[in-house]
């Protein structure tokens, strides 16, 4: 708040009021008329009048300003305000579409946005000023300012009514998306009924307690000459509202226990369901099917290599990994020995870059020199050698002991099929065996009410039965509908774009699809989600739609 401006404003008001008060007879009469009119209004009308006045001023000012500011002249570097075509407010019926082409009259929406910002700023200024003026007026006219207790009491009531209506609206409009329609899995139906019971109960309690809270606030607001009831405790009442919630919660928790059991104990001994491995990594998913033998081969993080992305215990690949590792250790060792030479050549490069006045090259070379000078490069190389030696030792120890060797290299992995989509059979129990390569991820299939964390070093699993095919779901939700598996545990830069398509089909369709996939010992490259931001340069940023991004990404594969 600008202090001098405030004082100016105050001075004007004082001057104006005193002018009316002392000098001008006409103004004196006018004031008398206004004040008699004003005094005849009761408090509430007065307040409404004042609020309306303030609101009017704000809207007037905001509309004036928003009209006078041409947004196209407000270009800041890299930013042009020509992209918005989605409405600012409105029901969610209007499906958002990413901006396509620049239309000429789009600036209106942008103007609305800017005027909103201005609106907020002006609101603050007006409120602060209005308060100062009203206090001043009260002081000068010697009248009591508005009774704020009464105003607040009424706003309490209004807030209750508006709030409950807004809640009802939310339930009606957004509530219909709740839980994405009916569940597409067997336990999902039980889940939904548990959810609905909780929803009904909590909604009732919510409405009753909120009404009580605001109604009491309204009803028992301060009145002159009224004294509150001295009522410090009532044991019967307190026991009553301890026991009632306790009983309700007991019922809920028992029902919850039942539901929980139906979810987590769907297949305790693992005999009834088909196993599929879900493999998570930064940033993508793979599914691994057991193949013809019905057994998932052993996999281990130690065996992961460029060609063997899931680390299957496939002996030829492991052997070539050992060769690769040995070569890498040698090259690391050489790099370590050559560090002084590298440093000198870098220094020469830096001198050359300096002569050519190439600032960019200079800074990058300088960075490298610093890395070597402070020993970081040496530490990195040493650590790398240590890591690889350890990995070699571990692989060797597996291969040395025949008993251990037998548990790893079972040949069951040879016909395993690694895919980038997840196809499941309708009405068939499936168990996901989760394995993470690096970070904790979480596999969330919201349509199936299924979620489980994927933890490195700790196998987790989740069993469920899909009951609705993708085709059936498309019939319900429109042709663009797809099931997805999302990552739901923060896992790094591209966490937000780490998902896998899920398809529910009949047994025959899944079998036919599996035949088109390649067998395991030549796993296909995994989908890597590159953050969209890195895919395009800033100049084209505003014009690209999300659909374009997806296309580009597909092209990158």
């Amino acid at each position: 708040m600008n202090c001098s401006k405030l004082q100016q404003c105050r001075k004007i008001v004082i001057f104006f009021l005193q002018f009316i008060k002392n000098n001008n007879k006409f103004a004196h009469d006018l004031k008398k008329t206004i004040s008699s009119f004003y005094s005849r209004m009761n408090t509430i009308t007065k307040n409404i009048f004042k609020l309306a006045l303030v609101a009017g001023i704000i809207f007037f000012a905001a509309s004036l300003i928003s009209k006078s500011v041409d947004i196209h002249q407000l270009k800041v570097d890299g930013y042009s305000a020509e992209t918005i075509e989605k409405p600012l407010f409105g029901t969610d019926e209007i499906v958002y579409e990413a901006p396509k082409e620049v239309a000429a009259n789009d600036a209106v929406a942008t103007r609305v946005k800017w005027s909103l910002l201005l609106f907020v700023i002006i609101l603050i200024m007006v409120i602060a000023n209005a308060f100062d003026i009203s206090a001043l007026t009260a002081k000068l006219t010697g009248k009591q300012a508005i009774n704020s207790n009464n105003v607040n009491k009424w706003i309490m009531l209004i807030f209750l009514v508006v709030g409950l209506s807004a809640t009802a609206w939310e339930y009606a409009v957004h509530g219909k998306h709740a839980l994405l329609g009916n569940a597409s899995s067997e336990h999902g139906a039980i889940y939904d009924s548990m959810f609905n019971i909780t929803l009904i109960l909590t909604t009732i309690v919510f409405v009753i307690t909120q009404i009580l809270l605001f109604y009491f606030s309204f009803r028992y607001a301060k009145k002159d000459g009224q004294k509150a009831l001295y009522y410090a405790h009532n044991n019967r009442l307190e026991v009553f509202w301890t026991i009632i919630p306790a009983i309700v919660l007991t019922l809920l928790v028992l029902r919850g226990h039942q539901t929980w059991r139906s979810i987590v104990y769907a297949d305790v001994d693992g005999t009834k369901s088909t196993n599929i491995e879900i493999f998570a990594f930064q940033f993508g998913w793979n599914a691994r099917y057991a193949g013809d033998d019905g057994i998932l081969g052993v996999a281990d993080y130690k065996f992961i290599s460029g060609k063997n992305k899931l680390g299957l215990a496939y002996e030829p690949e492991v052997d070539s990994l050992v060769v690769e590792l040995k070569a890498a250790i040698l090259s690391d060792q050489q790099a370590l020995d050559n560090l002084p030479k590298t440093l000198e050549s870098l220094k020469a490069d830096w001198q050359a870059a300096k002569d050519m006045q190439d600032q960019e090259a200079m800074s990058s070379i300088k960075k490298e020199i610093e890395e070597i000078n402070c020993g970081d490069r040496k530490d990195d190389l040493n650590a790398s050698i240590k890591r690889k030696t350890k990995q070699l030792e571990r692989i060797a120890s597996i291969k040395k002991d025949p008993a251990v060797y037998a548990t790893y290299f079972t040949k069951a992995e040879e016909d395993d099929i690694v895919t980038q989509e997840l196809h499941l059979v309708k009405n068939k129990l499936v168990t996901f065996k989760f394995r993470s390569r690096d970070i904790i991820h979480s596999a969330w299939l919201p349509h199936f009410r299924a979620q489980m964390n994927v933890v490195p070093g700790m196998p987790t699993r989740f069993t469920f039965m899909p009951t609705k095919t993708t085709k059936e779901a498309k019939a319900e939700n429109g042709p663009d509908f797809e099931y997805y598996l999302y990552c739901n545990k923060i896992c790094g830069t591209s966490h937000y774009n780490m998902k896998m398509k899920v398809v529910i089909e009949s047994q025959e369709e899944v079998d036919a699809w599996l035949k088109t996939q390649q067998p395991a010992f030549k796993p296909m490259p995994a989908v890597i989600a590159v953050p969209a931001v890195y895919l395009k340069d800033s100049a084209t940023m505003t014009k690209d739609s999300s659909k374009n991004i997806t296309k580009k990404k597909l092209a990158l594969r």
Partner: protein
Amino acid sequence: MSTETLTATHTHQDEHAHHEHHEPSFIRKYVFSTDHKMISKQFLITGIIMGCLGMLMSLLFRIQLAWPDESFGFLESLLGKWAKGGKIDPNYYMALVTIHGTIMVFYVLTAGLSGTFSNLLIPLQVGARDMASPFMNMLSYWFFFASSVVLLSSFAVETGPASSGWTVYPPLSALQKAMPGSGLGTTLWLVAIILFIVSALLGGINYIVTVLNMRTKGMSMNRLPLTIWAFLLTACLGLLSFPVLLGAGLFLIFDRSFGTSFYLSDIYLNGIGAMTNSGGSPIMYQHLFWFLGHPEVYIILLPALGITSEVIATNARKPIFGYSAMVISLLSIAVLSFIVWGHHMFITGMNPFLGTVFMYVTLIIAVPSAVKTFNYLATLWKGNIRFTPAMMFAIGLVSFFISGGLTGIYLGNAALDVQLHDSYFVVAHFHLVMGSAAIFGMFSGIYHWFPKMFGRMMNNTLGSIHFWLTFASAYMVFFPMHFMGLAGVPRRYYQFSLIPEFGIWMNVNIFITVSAFLGGAAQLLFLYNFFRSIFKGKPATQNPWESNTLEWSAPIKHLHGNWPGDIPAVYRGPHEYSRPDRDLDYFPQHEVGNGEPVHYEAPAETQKTYASDNKDSATKVFFSSFAHLFLLKKA
């Protein structure tokens, strides 16, 4: 500031010849002060500054969520390389989310709330000259300050601040190469948190000792104001749970910097290769973290509830309904909060049986919470309510406590959590029940005790407007998020426009962001009111709210030792408002009475006059007054 006439109070004090004080130097008075009132002001102002920063961060990432495909030039000029082309970098988005959470949970709602009001009120309300150890108290603030500086300094690091969420789960936070923020930024985060824990422990032990040992004559435990009960239990929670986080943090530092494997096992990192770590478990970190993390929720909430109890009783001019029930429910919440941490981990793959156990104990917590809510409602019933800003924020807290608490019943249920875990439903839940409720408790406390802190009054009208804007905007921001979560929108996603399924929420996201900006703007009103009133507010009277508690008997001008002369003795409980045997509607604790018992029972006939047309059952009276709402009969 109310200290300019300290010399005057000094002569006054010297006349009483109780203490021999020297005029402290500027540095000892304002910077390295050992006076609990000054330390509380330091905590408050640091907390407010951190709160503003936390809120600004939330506004920045709200812009990204509302307009994911657009670029804003001002972002680039504000954030530099982190917003190339006017669009926030995904890594920086994560960093903003992380630091927003950390600042709000630890720096604002733990230190800013508990630190401020425990320091101010404990000595003043129990009748002590200062904290048990003023020096430790000073250390507590300065550790907190150092911790804030370290945390904020991570914004100056090349790889950016910690960005693995405010829970900093390993392996993401443990592997320096896993994402940019896991480099130096996370190290600084951990150092900051360790400094913070030291601060919390130094403060907590001080609060406990002061409450237990330094109460004035007559201040028995059942005459303590509920604020003090809340601060005492909060300090106990902190003292028992923060050391666990200290351990967890140290292990994480070891894993990060010294190659140990507490939390790491079987990891192949892109660009690095197979790690040597083996045998650790990332889930162990989650157990340790949430062993603090869940009590932390109540470390945040209990002081707010305590403040609310006091403010509601004072401004409804009624004794708080069911004092003992309130204390018992506070106690049971505190005890239960130690055995429910597993409900944050239902889907980590832990034994399903363990999930069942945690589900049972979690839902038990709803019972004392319900008792508290109903007791607040009963306190308002037939009161004589004055809508001071403090009172309205307290009512707002109760409203949030109900809305957010009820969604806790979904999330505490292991079965329902399978779907709702880490969705926007969770975001909505904890922002209402913990974030908004606690910040409203803090605002309530600031408006209520501002006269005590600064000797001046804040402006009521501005306060009311601040309340209504904040209240409405908080609901507008967080209420729609429930429905987003229910429709399968995951939290901590940087860009929703990449997933067509979330398209229907784009308008809602814009609505939320605009509401957030409205809420942010409302805080400018508060800042204006707060800092203006410190210097130019109306001078406060001795007992502006006509309150009963002991702090209002201390002189308006602060003096070292709180009371000139003897510390007043206490004769009754803190909530003797509107007693039928008195003309005044309040009865200060220190006022000499007729030697009446601790719990004064209103005579039966007085009760009857209020409930004459409803025979005698209080239960009936309570519910009938609700029925009158519909029957439009005068209750």
